[in-house]
């Protein structure tokens, strides 16, 4: 029991941080926003899955992937294929040359459902495919890259190229994928209309709970020996290798976890927004997702969620009034964060707000006894001002090692 408390919830401080986030997305936002805005928040939260995965890959593992949109897209497309087949029953597609297949196939003179679409008639298969297809794809990329010790900038470039290739493939194979428009006009999930307000509420909550689940898994990974090994690898890869670890296996695993999280986000995106298109797969969305993580703090699982919400809220607010300025602003934001706040919002919180809060509110309370080494290290690295409450951080205060 105490192990669960410590590793999954991150002790008292981690629990408070998680409770605040859960309260915000499960209670506060649904109470304050109408369903249109809440659905928008739900859409942003699907990006947060990617950002949480990037905290593990990039923040802890030092693996910067500029192609997470691929996994987001694969998850989303798998979901969309099922929904599209359900929406394309012979009655509603009766005016087509070939009734019973998705409309875009009919427009592209395809007369039979392609073989790889067939299994997506089955919901069980679809849900499995959402999880498995992107993870296996990430595994193959990881195997090809990390076993050959490709890393750093080269890995970033290659993932970016993969994002470009997948986008071009989807756009080019219009008859099979829906092309540039994506897969649209999605209506029901097993007969349940996903376009109604009540469905949107339910999907919002499912999405939020899944996100919290991913954060818990992330917590478990980062507080385990695996998490310490990732940090050790980022610092001294050779020392880890010559301590008997197959470094590539660890990188492949964390990259797969990042892909899996992204895929869940992608599938939830399709369900909540009602379509999937290549514009969420390519280079630009992939880099935007890295920016969410950087703004939130790349060593903070909770920070990644706040970063995603904040940047997207800003994007919505600004792009409504100054659409052409937004991209420059976003680029500027990224540069500013990397240069001045390498640990993002979580870093700002830990450095400025937390010491203040701890002096004010937590001075008299004694913290529950945490595991010895970890707790004492965070104390020494933040100059003895470590409070007992650490929302926004994973309970691990790290100095930023690399640029």
């Amino acid at each position: 029991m105490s192990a669960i408390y410590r590793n999954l919830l991150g002790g008292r401080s981690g629990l408070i941080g998680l409770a605040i986030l859960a309260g915000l997305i499960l209670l506060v936002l649904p109470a304050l926003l109408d369903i249109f805005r809440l659905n928008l928040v739900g859409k942003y939260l699907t990006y947060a899955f990617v950002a949480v995965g990037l905290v593990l890959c990039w923040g802890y593992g030092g693996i910067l992937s500029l192609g997470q949109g691929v996994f987001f897209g694969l998850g989303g497309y798998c979901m969309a294929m099922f929904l599209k087949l359900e929406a394309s029953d012979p009655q509603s597609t009766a005016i087509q040359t070939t009734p019973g297949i998705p409309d875009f196939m009919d427009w592209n003179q395809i007369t039979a459902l392609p073989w790889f679409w067939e299994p997506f008639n089955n919901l069980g298969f679809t849900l499995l495919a959402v999880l498995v297809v992107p993870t296996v794809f990430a595994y193959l990329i990881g195997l090809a890259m990390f076993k050959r010790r490709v890393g750093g900038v080269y890995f970033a470039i290659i993932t970016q190229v993969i994002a470009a290739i997948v986008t071009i493939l989807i756009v080019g194979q219009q008859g099979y994928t829906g092309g540039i428009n994506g897969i649209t006009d999605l209506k029901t999930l097993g007969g349940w209309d996903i376009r109604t307000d009540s469905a949107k509420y339910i999907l919002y909550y499912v999405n939020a709970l899944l996100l919290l689940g991913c954060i818990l898994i992330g917590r478990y990974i980062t507080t385990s020996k695996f998490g310490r090994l990732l940090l050790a690898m980022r610092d001294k890869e050779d020392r880890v290798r010559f301590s008997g670890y197959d470094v590539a296996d660890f990188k492949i695993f964390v990259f797969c976890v990042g892909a899996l999280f992204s895929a869940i986000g992608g599938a939830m995106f399709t369900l909540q927004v009602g379509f999937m298109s290549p514009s969420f797969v390519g280079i630009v969305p992939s880099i935007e997702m890295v920016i969410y993580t950087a703004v939130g703090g790349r060593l903070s699982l909770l920070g990644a969620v706040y970063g995603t919400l904040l940047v997207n809220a800003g994007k919505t607010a600004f792009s409504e009034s100054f659409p052409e300025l937004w991209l420059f602003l976003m680029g500027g934001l990224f540069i500013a964060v990397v240069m001045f706040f390498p640990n993002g919002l979580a870093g700002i919180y830990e450095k400025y707000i937390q010491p203040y809060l701890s002096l004010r509110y937590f001075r008299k309370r004694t913290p529950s006894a945490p595991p010895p080494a970890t707790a004492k290290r965070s104390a020494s690295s933040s100059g003895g001002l470590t409070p007992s409450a650490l929302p926004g951080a994973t309970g691990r205060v790290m100095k930023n090692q690399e640029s």
Partner: protein
Amino acid sequence: MTNNDFMLSVEDLTVSFDGFKAVDALNLYVDRNELRVVIGPNGAGKTTLLDLICGKTKATAGSIRFKGKELTKLAEHDIVRSGVGRKFQTPSIYENLSVFENLEISFPRGRGVFGSLAFRRTPDVVERVQGVAEEIFLADHLDMEAGLLSHGQKQWLEIGMLLIQSPELLMLDEPVAGMSVKERELTAELLRRICLNRSVIVIEHDMDFVQRIAHKVTVLHQGKMLAEGSMKKVQADPRVIEVYLGH
């Protein structure tokens, strides 16, 4: 003829980088319980020799056998798991982690992905970490961030990170570089203690230190063995004096 009686037998080992032979047809045999010191001028191939044994560099030709097992074809982590530990020239520790965590990460359990996810800090791990910390004079610094240790203490910590794996062959590249006189004495004592029941290969430039610890000395020069034997014998060798000790 096989030389399986030796802990380590290196035969005809050659590595060539674009035609330059950093190690050239080298033969080297190390016994159990032996502490061997490898000396030689800069560029003699000392560090390359350790790189070859631990798998960091792949040999062009020749064989390296450890307890009769061929190492040249193994992956680095498999070489480590079969019992070979190597300390790098500059202290290579995890600066962000505590001394305790540095040692814990090196503890040989949970070395696979899922093993590391399931790893628990059980009492036997804590006990072993404390035992090793005692041995490397860092028992009072377990909770300290490793990056804050002095240079000499970092060297000890890295040695400790190897000891916790109980390797049968321990290779140390300049273990006393940057240490004070007092720290050198303690290290000499440590090395004499740890070579029991295993083999230790040390690369070192400090001749006083070599004299204090070495059972046998191997002198390398331009990738080849120049001389081998007791410190006294090697020091008297005119060729060694000319290329290395003379100045």
